């Protein structure tokens, strides 16, 4: 992979921006494109891409952050599990500072709960092996990129007969949320930048329905600035021609059918479930729950009393996730809510839109 530096090359970026400006001048109408991947949210913000685009070409973020769309109730459930005796809770780092109806996991840990941050579901599996008398519960949050890793860890637990390894199911899948977005009468999006690594697993054909059924173009792109800009250029071209196709601009990683091995293990362990997304309410078949035969690994079945869930007052994370507002339109943005003192999930998570804007677009929209 020589010359991979070209992905970030200054002149290549300038050339793509030049073509985007030309394409935008040719079409009288403006365009709004949405990405639905937290890593894209941050890549766009960190590279300052918004500021390079011509007036009239707008990039917005959708529900691409799995931690951000996880409702408060899930955190309440996690906290209740952490409070159980002989239980170790394992989680990806992002969830530690996300608000529940009461305290965060980080605060619970400070008060004595056994909570471990892990990089992989396999780390949680290793903890289960090393602590056979203890129940290890892994907080299963994440989209299609992460789901197979959790399914694989569960399959390994079955194979190695590690009975003390459980998950609290909370994984979600993106296409049903995208369906909700294209059906939202208040959202006017002319194309989607499609998630590169989700597509590695699902295959890009998973997203074809956006074009064929709803007339909205899409471009699967990677995460370098040139990847995103090539996507914007393609979508702009489709928008001006009035065509709707889903194109794969991340061919070096994405195939039409995706990772079949991963799909098989996911299907073996999980089945679709209706699930709630912050900002959207319940979306049919948008979540994954353990199949009945793996009920012994479902920590959600442990009888527990949970508090009445409530969101932080004044937080507009839900509206940000639907693409209805930019973070700067939330009254709490940089006025009480910041990465060091987050009020909502969108500001906590490294993939959150508010966190990306605070770090890189903090003073955007100030001339309005």
């Amino acid at each position: 992979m020589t010359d991979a530096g070209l992905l970030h090359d200054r002149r290549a970026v300038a050339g793509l921006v030049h073509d985007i400006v030309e394409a935008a001048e040719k079409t009288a109408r403006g365009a709004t494109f949405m990405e639905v991947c937290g890593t894209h949210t941050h890549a766009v913000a960190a590279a300052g891409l918004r500021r390079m685009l011509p007036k009239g070409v707008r990039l917005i973020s959708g529900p691409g952050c799995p931690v951000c769309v996880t409702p408060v109730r899930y955190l309440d459930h996690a906290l209740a599990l952490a409070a159980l005796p002989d239980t170790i809770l394992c989680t990806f780092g992002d969830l530690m500072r996300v608000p529940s109806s009461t305290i965060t996991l980080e605060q619970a840990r400070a008060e004595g709960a056994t909570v471990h941050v892990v990089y992989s579901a396999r780390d949680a599996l290793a903890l289960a092996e090393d602590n056979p008398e203890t129940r290890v519960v892994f907080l299963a949050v994440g989209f299609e990129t992460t789901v197979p890793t959790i399914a694989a860890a569960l399959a390994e637990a079955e194979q190695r007969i590690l009975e003390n390894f459980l998950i609290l199911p909370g994984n979600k899948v993106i296409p049903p949320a995208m369906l909700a977005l294209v059906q939202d009468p208040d959202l006017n999006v002319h194309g989607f930048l499609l998630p590169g690594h989700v597509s590695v697993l699902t295959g890009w054909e998973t997203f074809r329905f956006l074009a064929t059924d709803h007339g909205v173009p899409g471009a699967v792109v990677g995460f370098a600035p040139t990847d995103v800009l090539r996507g914007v250029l393609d979508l702009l071209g489709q928008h001006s021609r009035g065509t709707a196709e889903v194109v794969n601009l991340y061919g070096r990683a994405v195939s039409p059918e995706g990772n079949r091995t991963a799909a098989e293990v996911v299907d073996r362990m999980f089945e679709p479930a209706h699930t709630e997304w912050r900002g959207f309410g319940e979306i049919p078949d948008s979540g994954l729950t353990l199949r009945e035969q793996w009920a012994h690994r479902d920590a959600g079945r442990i009888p527990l009393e949970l508090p009445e869930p409530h969101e932080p007052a004044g937080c507009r994370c839900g509206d940000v996730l639907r693409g209805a507002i930019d973070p700067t339109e939330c009254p709490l943005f940089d006025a009480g809510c910041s990465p060091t003192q987050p009020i909502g999930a969108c500001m906590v998570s490294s993939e959150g839109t508010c966190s990306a804007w605070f770090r890189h677009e903090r003073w955007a929209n100030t001339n309005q």
Partner: protein
Amino acid sequence: MCLAIPMRLMERTEMEGVVELDGIRRTISLMLLPEAEVGQHVLVHAGYAIGAVDEDEAATTLELLREYADNMEDL
């Protein structure tokens, strides 16, 4: 958590692999990419290889970007 890093597969022993990028080595699972070959670049996410990098496609993309870069120098 959609971040997946392209790393080179240096060794494998059944379903465990050792990958490397810029001198950093990590042990990962190949359960989701059992066909991975030593020497290939694979995408690593949360302790697993989730896909392989298509070197021909990568070369095509880089060629396109090289053209952009060269054109900008001529302007």
